[in-house]
């Protein structure tokens, strides 16, 4: 399975970007389930509606780490509105594709970003945009597969 990873996935797995935590983050999102084998936790620092910093911690396979890394790259420096538009498809394309059995990792990355944004809105007491309405879904093992 490892050999089915693109060069880009291998690169982001070997040297992931934005690994770590942010103290006093403005938004934190955690998705996934240890029983399924992957958990992503995303931290956002937001100033004037712009994501000025983002970090992640991930427990998971090579694809889970690579999609986390790519998703953080894709939203860093972007406005909240732009980050909200992030799709798993965009993450997959930026990584030059993922093996079919690993596509759920990209979904998890999109959900982690959205969960962190939802947390930001909730903490601020702002009304939650429609794009994030489903970001708080539960994750059981069936959901891992999508």
């Amino acid at each position, binding site marked *: 399975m*490892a050999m089915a990873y693109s060069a880009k996935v291998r690169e982001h797995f070997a040297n992931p970007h934005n690994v770590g935590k942010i103290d006093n983050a403005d938004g934190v999102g955690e998705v996934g389930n240890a029983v399924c084998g992957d958990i992503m936790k995303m931290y956002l620092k937001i100033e004037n509606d712009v994501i000025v910093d983002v970090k*992640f911690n991930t427990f998971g396979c090579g694809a889970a780490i690579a999609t986390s890394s790519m998703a953080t790259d894709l939203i860093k420096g972007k406005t909240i509105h732009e980050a909200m538009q992030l799709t798993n498809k965009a993450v997959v394309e930026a990584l030059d594709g993922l093996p079919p*059995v690993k596509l759920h990792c990209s979904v998890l990355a999109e959900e982690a970003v959205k969960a962190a944004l939802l947390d930001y809105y909730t903490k601020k007491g702002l009304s939650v945009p429609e794009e994030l309405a489903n970001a708080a879904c539960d994750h059981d093992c069936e959901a891992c597969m999508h």
Partner: protein
Amino acid sequence: MDNAATTSVSEAALAAMLPALRENYGNPSSLHELGQRSSAALEEARESVAWCLGAQPREIYFTSGGTEADNWAIRQLARQGAARGKKHLITTAFEHHAVLHTMARLEKDGFEVTYLDVHEDGLVRPEELEAALRDDTALVSIMLANNEIGTIQPIRALAELCHAHKVPIHTDAVQAVGHIPVNVDELGVDLLSLSGHKFHGPKGVGALYCRRSLRLTPLLEGGAQERNRRPGTENLPGILGMAAALREATEHLEEHMAHVTALRDALLTGIADIPCTRVNGSVEHRLPGNVNVCFEGIEGESLLLRLDLAGICASSGSACTSGSLDPSHVLLAIGLPKEVAHGSLRLSLDAQNTREEVDYTLEQLPRIVQTLRDMSPVWEQMKAEGRC
């Protein structure tokens, strides 16, 4: 360090194979000189394999590998049992899929299968087999050594129980042959499967041992090869390579076992220094070369990929490497929670591994485990809860 997956072809095996691929390419069934040379080579290989197992040549049937041998033994013995009204089979929960999936198929065909517990230490309890044996039991199939955690089953004691109940016993010895002493009479088994590429023979060849007192009907239909039991022109190069590899492994068994055990113990000692690590399965009743551990808080595939980047080949029972949602059925069978089983690592050593390789692994592994734990929310939570 992934020799349980496969091994390199030894020089002795290659030397035995090459003439059969070049000038001695005859079909053993042909009556002419070229064919008869192949026929003689085939029978010599059979004698050699039989000698290595303490069997008689006529009890050895060459196959396409361990999977075919397992399928053959189980399906045919089940079919023969069913003809006498016996439709119960006994196996364990952590067999290789060649056995488990064959059993599942037979269940669909109306057989009842009892899966014996292998407990936390990865060992079958003879008294539990005794309790499971019935008048309508057609076959017992229990592996000699497990492919993931390397635990060695008390086959002799299990075989004695089977014989007392007049039930034939098959063992999948694919991971054991060439690595520990395997003598069919000492084990008391009636059928035994082996695979060439696990002991430096080529891939695509194996054998089924079947005790002469037992009737064995063919799985496949066709020609009269293998004394009418296994049709198809024999894979002579493969068979000769496997026989040469097995002879070499058997002749050097003691020295290889001592070397590999010392390496394995050095690995286990070094790994024990990594916190929150557990060894899966009994250490005492274990293949000399098998290390199987779980590092809590990390996932196995990312560990394998990082080891690969450091030039170390290993294997894992994580779901990500199995291509399914669930982690290894072997680790679940010994009672590991799924979240822990995802973090498993198997290192399987062989006589060709060196102390330098073990030292290098012990230099890289703690660093890699730490890097992955540092980015793991699961590990963070474990630390916060004081579990590690």
